[in-house]
């Protein structure tokens, strides 16, 4: 098999990967995009198998079979509410694969390895290993294995950055002394520890940004491995993945009005801070689903704002039924999607798509916000901080400056919430105390089911 042919096939694969992302621009062509991705992958693997005869076919076949056996049920069965944790897991797998290949390459090439290659290799391994443990911790938080609250301690920055320093120092030492393979183990250990320390200090609601950043790291480390192996297809694929994570991370952090540094090292959401003075005696009016129906009966326009609470309560299907019932009464129903609602980019869209809500009904924040003043009823299901008007009005609030869904501008706000506790940020929501807000306390699914039943009983 000639090198020219293999390289040509790699060009075709790279083109298919690029087209794959291009087709993801809109829903209509998106499945074609996925097929292009599959096509590119098949060509890339086929060309490589032709060009490089594996010396241990049994190991290779065994590994592929394990991958297929583990991967198929994940791809076919994982619940839509669990997609954020499966995404974290896939970043863990991808980055560990890249780090292990990097380590293998080190052992093969030493002592003949040149300093430039070894430097890139060290960077790739640090990034790969830290992304692995970071993603494992993100998985554990999203899966509820460990608490979603950030774990903070005194001198945290010092310990974390010190660990990263050890990893970098061992990398420098290894480049200077390529045969000292013990330094590789120190590098790996320190990078693994740093990833762990970094993510345990980050709270659950920051996960959309964290997942995007880890996505970017996984992609960049794959591209770095492409440099080491002089494999340009890997450079292209890794760069595309790295770009994707970066763009998504920027969108997420803008939607929270926070910097990457603040999200990674800020430890936001650790404990509820004391309420700002003067608001201690505020009392929210609570209502029942029957009260809400009275308002909905005369409504012409309704906007539903879902959040992570909808996912937790698995309430997306009831929400869809409510939407259908309202539409059957001639009411215009839209869904307002905040970019960081949920636990990963696009999480709410997927849950509502699963419940068969047509995607024309899903409105982005910037497009839906001007519509709230003409909306009769806004129904908030399991969202909190992303609706807090303090983000617009109170310069001393931690949320100040964050773009929010302006549900408070609707004529009536129905806020469905499990308890009166503050949101993830620990900040009390001013919305609860507005005269046009109806608080309905209880499990989202239960409240919506009752509301639906009451709505269907209406005779008029």
């Amino acid at each position, binding site marked *: 098999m000639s090198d020219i042919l293999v390289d040509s096939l790699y060009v075709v694969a790279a083109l298919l*990967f*690029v087209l*794959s*992302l291009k087709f*993801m621009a809109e*829903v209509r062509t998106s499945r074609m995009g*996925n097929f292009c*991705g599959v096509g*590119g992958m098949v060509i*890339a*693997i086929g060309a490589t198998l032709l060009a490089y005869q*594996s*010396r*241990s076919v049994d*190991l290779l076949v065994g590994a592929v079979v394990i*991958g*297929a056996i583990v*991967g198929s049920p*994940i*791809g*076919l069965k*994982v619940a839509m509410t669990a997609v954020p944790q499966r*995404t974290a897991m*896939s970043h863990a797998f*991808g980055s*560990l*694969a890249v780090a*292990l290949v990097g*380590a*293998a390459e080190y*052992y*093969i*090439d030493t002592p003949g390895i*040149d300093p*430039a*290659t070894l430097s890139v290799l060290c960077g790739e391994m640090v990034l790969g290993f830290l992304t692995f443990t970071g993603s494992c911790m993100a998985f554990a938080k999203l899966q509820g294995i460990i608490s979603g609250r950030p774990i903070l301690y005194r001198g945290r920055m010092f310990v974390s950055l010190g660990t990263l320093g050890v990893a970098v120092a061992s990398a420098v030492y290894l480049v200077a002394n390529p045969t000292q393979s013990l330094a590789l183990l120190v590098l790996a250990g320190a990078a693994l520890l740093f990833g762990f320390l970094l993510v345990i200090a980050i709270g659950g609601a920051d996960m959309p940004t964290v997942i*995007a950043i880890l996505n970017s790291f*996984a*992609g960049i480390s794959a*591209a770095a*491995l*492409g*440099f080491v192996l002089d*494999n340009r*297809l890997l450079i292209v*694929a890794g760069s*595309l993945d*790295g*770009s*994707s994570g970066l763009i998504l991370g920027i*969108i997420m952090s803008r939607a929270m009005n926070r910097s990457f540094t603040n999200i990674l090292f800020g430890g936001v959401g650790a404990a509820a801070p004391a309420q700002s003075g003067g608001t201690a005696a505020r009392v929210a009016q609570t209502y029942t689903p029957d009260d809400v129906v009275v308002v909905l009966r005369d409504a012409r326009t309704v906007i539903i704002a879902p959040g992570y609470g909808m996912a937790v309560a698995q309430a997306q299907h009831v929400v869809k039924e409510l939407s259908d019932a309202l539409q059957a009464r001639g009411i215009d129903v839209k869904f307002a999607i905040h*970019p960081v609602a949920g636990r*990963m*980019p*696009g*999480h709410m*869209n*997927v849950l509502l798509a699963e419940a*068969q809500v047509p995607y024309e009904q899903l409105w*982005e924040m910037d497009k839906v916000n001007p519509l709230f003043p003409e909306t009769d009823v806004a129904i908030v299901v399991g969202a909190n901080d992303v609706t807090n008007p303090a983000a617009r009005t109170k310069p001393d609030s931690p949320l100040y400056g964050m773009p929010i869904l302006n549900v408070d501008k609707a004529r009536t706000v129905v806020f469905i919430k499990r308890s009166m506790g503050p949101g993830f940020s620990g900040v009390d929501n001013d919305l609860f105390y507005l005269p046009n807000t109806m608080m309905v306390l209880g499990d989202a699914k239960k409240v919506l089911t009752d509301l639906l039943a009451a709505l269907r009983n209406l005779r008029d």
Partner: protein
Amino acid sequence: MTALSSADLITNLMIFVLATVLGQELIRHVSRLLHTPLMALTNAISSVSFIAALIVLAEPSSEDVSILAAIAVALAATNIVSGFLLTDRILRMFRRRKPDK
């Protein structure tokens, strides 16, 4: 095979920079509706690191090194299979409003 000449390094850097810029442009145009399947898709695509493990498995090396590469093959294969399957499953769920009766 891996002693990089500086010319190769610069060419690769060029590819990296151009692919990153192209990637930024492409991703910027992806509908926000599709950010979750996009992540599943790009993750599967970057698991083309599978081929890096294949290349390592073809080089003469010790048993231990082959095992490292084989673990990488299994991890990358898991991502490829689950990534593409999940992306398709999610994309099939996005549907338009049913035409009025």
